[in-house]
């Protein structure tokens, strides 16, 4: 629907490559990549917590680098390879990071999880066996209010360990969990 407000809006035809799929879209130039992903391409796996670049929730990968989709305009990333959580793995075939997050309880409400996973993926692509401090540093721009971060760090470590050993290493034992009733 074209109305008064729309007439003043400048639009661009862009080609975006998202998760390996090529989309040709007509978008107002001021619309953010976050909005385009969620509202035009139906990729609602990418979440948002502030839309101001403060929380890291909307992190996606642009040519393998973690970027905040709420601060990017599509015109800036036309021609780049964009990866969202939908491109990381699926419910039928979890990415090793997703597998580790699921097993270790690194997702509670799950809302920060897509952004967290992509930031972690970028880290592991660059540093396959990161130390704990490197993991914390790499993910420090992503806020989580549920987990206290501990399980996320452990999950990234586990995914890295499994990738390095090329096998399904078992999860580390739960510290102090369970036990006999007193």
């Amino acid at each position, binding site marked *: 629907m074209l109305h008064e407000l729309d007439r003043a809006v400048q639009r661009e035809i862009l080609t975006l490559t998202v998760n390996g799929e090529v989309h040709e879209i007509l978008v107002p130039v001021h619309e953010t990549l976050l909005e385009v992903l969620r509202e035009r391409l139906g990729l609602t796996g990418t979440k*948002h917590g*502030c839309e101001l670049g403060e929380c890291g929730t909307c992190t996606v990968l642009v040519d393998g680098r973690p970027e905040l989709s709420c601060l990017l305009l599509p015109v800036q990333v036309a021609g780049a390879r964009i990866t969202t959580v939908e491109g990381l793995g699926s419910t039928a075939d979890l990415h090793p990071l997703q597998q580790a997050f699921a097993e270790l*309880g690194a997702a509670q409400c799950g809302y920060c999880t897509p952004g967290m996973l992509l930031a972690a993926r970028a880290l592991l692509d660059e540093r396959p066996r990161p130390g704990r401090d490197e993991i914390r540093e790499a993910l420090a721009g992503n806020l989580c*209010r549920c987990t*206290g*971060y501990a399980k*996320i760090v452990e999950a990234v470590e586990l995914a890295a360990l499994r990738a390095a050993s090329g096998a399904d290493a078992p999860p580390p034992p739960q510290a102090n969990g369970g036990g006999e009733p007193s």
Partner: protein
Amino acid sequence: MSGLDVVGRPLPRVDAAAKVTGVAVYADDLVLPRMLHCRILRSPHPHARIASVDASAARRVPGVRAVLTGQDLPIRYGIMPVAQDERALEFEKVRYVGDPVAAVAAVDEETAAAALDAIRVEYEVLEPVTSIEAALREPVDEPIHDRAYTRRPFNVHRQLAYDFGDLEAGFARADHIREDVFFYQGSTHLPMEQHSAVATYVDGRVTLWSSTQVVHYVHRALARVLELPMHRIRVIGAAHGGGFGGKTDPFAHEIIVSRLAMVTGRPVKCTLTREEVFYAHRGRHPVLMWIRTGVTRDGRITAVHYRSALDGGAYGSYGPASVFYTGTLQTTTYAIPAYRFESVRVFTNKAPCGPKRGHGTPQGRFGIELQLDKIAEDLGMDPVELKRRNFVQPFTRAVNWLRVTSCGLDECTRKVLDASGYLRRERRPGRGMGFAISSYMSGAGTAIYWNDMAHSEVHLKVDRTGVTAYCGAMEIGQGSDSVLAFVVAEELGLRPSDVRLVTADTDTTPVDLGSYSSRVTFMAGNAALQAARRMRDLLVEAVAERMGVHGDLSEIEVRDGRIGDFTFEEACVIGTTRFGALSTSGSYKPPRIGGPFKGNGVGPSPAYSYSACVVDLDADARTGLVDVRKVWIAHDVGRAINPLLVIGQVEGSVYMGLGEALMEEQAYRKGRHKWPSMLEYKSPTFLDTPEIETFIVETVDPEGPYGAKEAGQGPLLPVLPALVSAVHDALGVWVDEVPVTPEKVLRALDALARGEAPRHGPKAFPDFDFGERIHVEPPDPHDMRVGRELEESFRGA
């Protein structure tokens, strides 16, 4: 208990795959055909009368489909029956920056936002009330609410005064008496997900999907304000992006989109901006406390006189309960033989406060723990030893009649002391450790609105396709759905993934009161247990008949996906062949525990969880910076139905406690929020969160499902006092208010250097007449009676 196959195992949550793939559908992810977008115009003034609202220009903006103003939704609502004091859209006056005034539904958000700009609101600005002290004085212009709704001096919302036992006698027995004043700053939940709601209106029925913690209470509020019978409203909990108490009230935007859907006949969505989330708030009450405690020479508490003043913000919210919670659970942690509890909640022109993780109890916990530390210092005792001498004992009744059942305080304390080496710690300037304990409810013993119905109901259906569990409980990330699945799977000999779940949908699920007060595991867990055992009995009966077993059916095993000689699938067919479609229901209602006095409804819980915590930190005397090295926490969860989820709840609680201890602040300047953004409202990142070592302590509560108690809130409580105590251990100064910012540490050190009292904190508690106290005779501490038996004993007395 032995022979449990599912309970006690660290299995992944049942919704893990949906959450790690981005498939889970949160409210803002919903897109419906022809959906309109709503934006809300909010007050820019903390306190003002509304002279006029002119929305005519907004209605003419192309793309606008409807505009609502206050007259369209005039009926007041609120979460508590005694605090029906807010409107979805206000038309008489606004009471905080962010109070909703008008709403627009348009073809897209930009159009809706442009239309808001076209709405003209004339305000008559009033002097805002912005502090507890100001609210306890006569109003400059006018009170925030009607005089008839409040108490003198008319910004007082609620007040209470109780005497449990003989306070004077208690103080007379004391060898040492100490008075202190503490302040606990307010903070907000900061859920990662901004609140969002989508409504439709089809065939005369409203359907609302929302990021709420309590579909039932939203359902009630919608029925009231929309003036529709409840059967014409359906509320569905969408996947939930974090609550922590912040999505436990019914909210204006939920009512507004429902009305807009009714007006336009189209789906309408409203997602709050992050700034609006700060105004929606309902977070931690700022609380000023004055505490006077008497002890014997050997450190035993003889009496506590506790006063609290809560800055409630602009509306009631859960305030009538919060005011109790700041003091009522003091007695379930330490044995206090005489207790005077006086409290007042005031209205101020700030975003309304409500329940945040721990609801009212972290503040009181903070004060008492620190005062006991100081008393130990006065007596030259180790604070751990002093606290231990006063620990509440299992299976006792407190002076205010709260019933303590299982209690793992001793074991929790032992665990964190051993692991941290607290008693052998190296003593050097700049390095310190602190210890604190807490207790918390496993669900409130009283519903928000008075009724005698169950607090949780679960239906199970078995047909030829398997089993489905239905429950109104709301998964908010804490693992509510998983607990349901684990309990049903345990009882029916299945894996959790074999159990289909339908939850938090008021059309299809029986009522559960929702995810607040740490009630789900205990209450929905017990309801599920009952429903599942009933279902198991039916299936076993049908299978036994088929197998030709008569009499003792206990030989028919239900485990590993089999019932007797048959697979579960076969048993379902046998069962439905025998009985027709099978359905069972289970329900749970907590026992009546409260004592013989008015106001006995807040505080009782069927069981209390217990925690102990040690914080180890470096504190820099030059910069005032505090760097937490490690936190040890032990939590008595009764039984861990799933240790993976329990540890997740405990770690999350500790993290959130550290945020409140060190940096989080819902602060205002002249009635305006200082920093309604995630960048400026500081919360801990990965880099600010230390290692947390968690110990699960299992006391197997006699009334919890498999002995389980709560895990999601209690472990936050001891973190703050333990941290402040550790700062004192490191630097020799007390910071008697949170957050412990570097400035406060330095001010305390300055005071020390000047030879003044080595502290930073509030100086005094304001003068206030709490009114006539209710005197309550203490119970026999070994009287464990509940329900009718207990109530009859009151009449006999």
